[in-house]
């Protein structure tokens, strides 16, 4: 093909002109890179980008060791129970008629001592609990924690990620767990998502130290309970209860806050720093957390209790992509093209001015058009302006930004 073109060209044309022709030619389909079967798939590439060197990024278990159970004895007991199940004709009848409904409460109770620590640890990892509280450390919550908020007649338990609204969590919850009478415990409730000024810090909502056994009332209150207060527009905040087992009586006077402590900077807390100092005396052993998002009761809370104006936030979406402006935007409608590069505030102002032209302080606004597309255009109107008018009648596009 290239040769045939050359014969038509004037012999005096220089090489650059010919190369220009050559570049315009298409030499069929070219595969860039390796063929699909050989090249890495997107999944493989993503996995490679997520890879972390285990020599540097390893995690440390800081929790209590698993309870020692005799495997053979456990197996004997379990086999005995299963044999009993198989020999139970009543159970067989119910199961075969598809009416067997197992007791969920019992399942919860049984799994609390068997599979629950693993299951809570996995879901806490999913919600980034360990990452934001302990960095590279994690633990299996060996002590089952039961936390119940009493809101009116309802009892709202805290599990691992369920939602409890701020007006349901106004008062301190009831805590219970199984332990020895002589042991000492610490309970901390923190929110790692809600700090108003520092994004790496937490607010401590409740802190009780030196709890003898499971008598939370007899513990030493270091920081008084404060209800969740997620600001409007910031979404769901994690509120995390952590139960630490103490080796001995610990002096928490450094963290002590007197009174209700409504000055929020005083509640600034970092579990990472706290645990780093006291890691010889404390072992994290229980975990429960809930989510809380804004509700209408918070306005009063901000005004009356915290004595501040209610902050309102809005999610900041990334700005839409607009391609670079061209010198000669050929075949592009000039009005739509220019609107892309103008200041959006100026465009909105124009829309607003146009709207205000028809607003009268004493007359009621004209009724909306019943058939906005079937309006007569008087005289000559260019097509682009017709489109603009149609769009504003139908409330399409940028007009929505001022409405």
């Amino acid at each position, binding site marked *: 093909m290239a040769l045939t073109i050359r014969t038509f060209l004037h012999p005096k044309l220089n090489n650059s002109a010919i190369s220009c022709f050559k570049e315009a030619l298409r030499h069929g389909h070219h595969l860039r890179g390796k063929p699909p079967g050989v090249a890495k798939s997107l999944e493989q590439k993503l996995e490679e980008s997520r890879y972390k060197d285990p020599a540097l990024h390893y995690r440390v278990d800081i929790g209590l060791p698993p309870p020692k159970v005799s495997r053979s004895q456990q197996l004997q007991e*379990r086999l005995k129970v*299963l044999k009993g*199940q*198989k020999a*139970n004709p009543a159970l067989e009848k119910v*199961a*075969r008629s*598809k009416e*067997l409904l*197992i007791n*969920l409460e*019992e*399942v*919860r109770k*049984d*799994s609390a001592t*068997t*599979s629950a620590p693993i*299951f809570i640890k*996995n879901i806490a*990892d*999913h*919600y*980034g609990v360990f990452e*934001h509280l302990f960095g590279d450390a994690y633990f299996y919550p060996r002590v089952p924690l039961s936390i119940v908020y009493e809101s009116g007649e309802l009892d709202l338990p805290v*599990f691992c*990620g*369920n939602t409890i609204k701020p007006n349901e969590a106004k008062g301190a919850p009831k805590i219970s767990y199984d332990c020895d009478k002589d042991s000492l415990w610490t309970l901390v409730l923190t929110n*790692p*998502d*809600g700090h*108003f*000024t520092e*994004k790496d810090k937490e607010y401590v909502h409740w802190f009780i130290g030196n709890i003898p056994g499971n008598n939370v009332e007899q513990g030493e209150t270091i920081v008084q309970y404060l209800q969740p207060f997620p*600001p409007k527009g*910031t*979404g*769901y*905040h*994690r509120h995390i209860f952590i139960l630490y087992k103490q080796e001995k009586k610990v002096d928490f006077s450094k963290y002590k806050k007197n009174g209700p402590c409504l*000055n*929020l*900077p005083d509640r600034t807390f970092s579990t990472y720093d706290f645990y780093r100092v006291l890691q010889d005396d404390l072992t994290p052993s229980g975990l429960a957390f809930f*989510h809380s998002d804004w509700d*209408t009761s918070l306005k009063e809370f901000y005004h009356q209790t*915290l004595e*501040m*104006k209610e*902050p*309102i*936030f*809005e*999610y*900041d979406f990334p700005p*839409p992509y607009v391609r670079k402006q061209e010198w000669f935007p050929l075949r592009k409608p000039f009005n*739509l093209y220019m609107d892309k590069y103008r200041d959006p505030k100026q465009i909105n102002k124009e829309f607003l001015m146009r709207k205000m032209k028809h607003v009268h302080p004493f007359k009621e606004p004209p009724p909306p058009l019943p058939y906005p597309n079937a309006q007569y255009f008087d005289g000559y109107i260019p097509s682009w302006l017709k489109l603009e008018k149609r769009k504003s009648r139908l409330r*399409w*596009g*940028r007009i929505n*930004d001022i409405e």
Partner: protein
Amino acid sequence: MNTISSKTIRLAEKLGISRFASTAVSGNEVSQVFTNRNPRNLEKMRIGYKPDGFHVDSLGKRYWHKLELKVTGRYVTAIIKHFENGEVLRASTSEWAIKKQLYKTKDTSAYVNLGRVLADRCLQCGLLEIGCFIQPASPDQKVAQFLKAVEDGGVSLKEPEQYKAPRPSDPYRPEKPWEVTE
């Protein structure tokens, strides 16, 4: 820490800064940019990234969380998968707490009860909407009974769409899901 830009929430401009100047009096200052570190927050608000896939993709690629069912020789396992984190939650008839109360670990009753236990755990973990791409052949099947038990337990087997911010030239402005309050 995760990328901050996607989790940064800026004060609405219309409120103005003066509104917050007065908060300095009581010591409870609020900065202009607020960061919520919760990695699941944007997904819960329906604005988090959800893989779009390609239009020729097979079913089951677009989800935040999805339900999977694994059947082995003796047991049945239900798994909740996250598109980035993989398996996050599981319930299986091989678990002692469940197996203890069953007659058989793979019959219809086992499937139904597995569904009930899974729904219970999902509610405990705040996973209320989960994508499900399992299509049972008939409604009498074990799998269909399992799915029904999960739905009866209070978990919706359909995930909402991701909210994408409209561009200025888009004709309509869809409702913002986080501004809807019952």
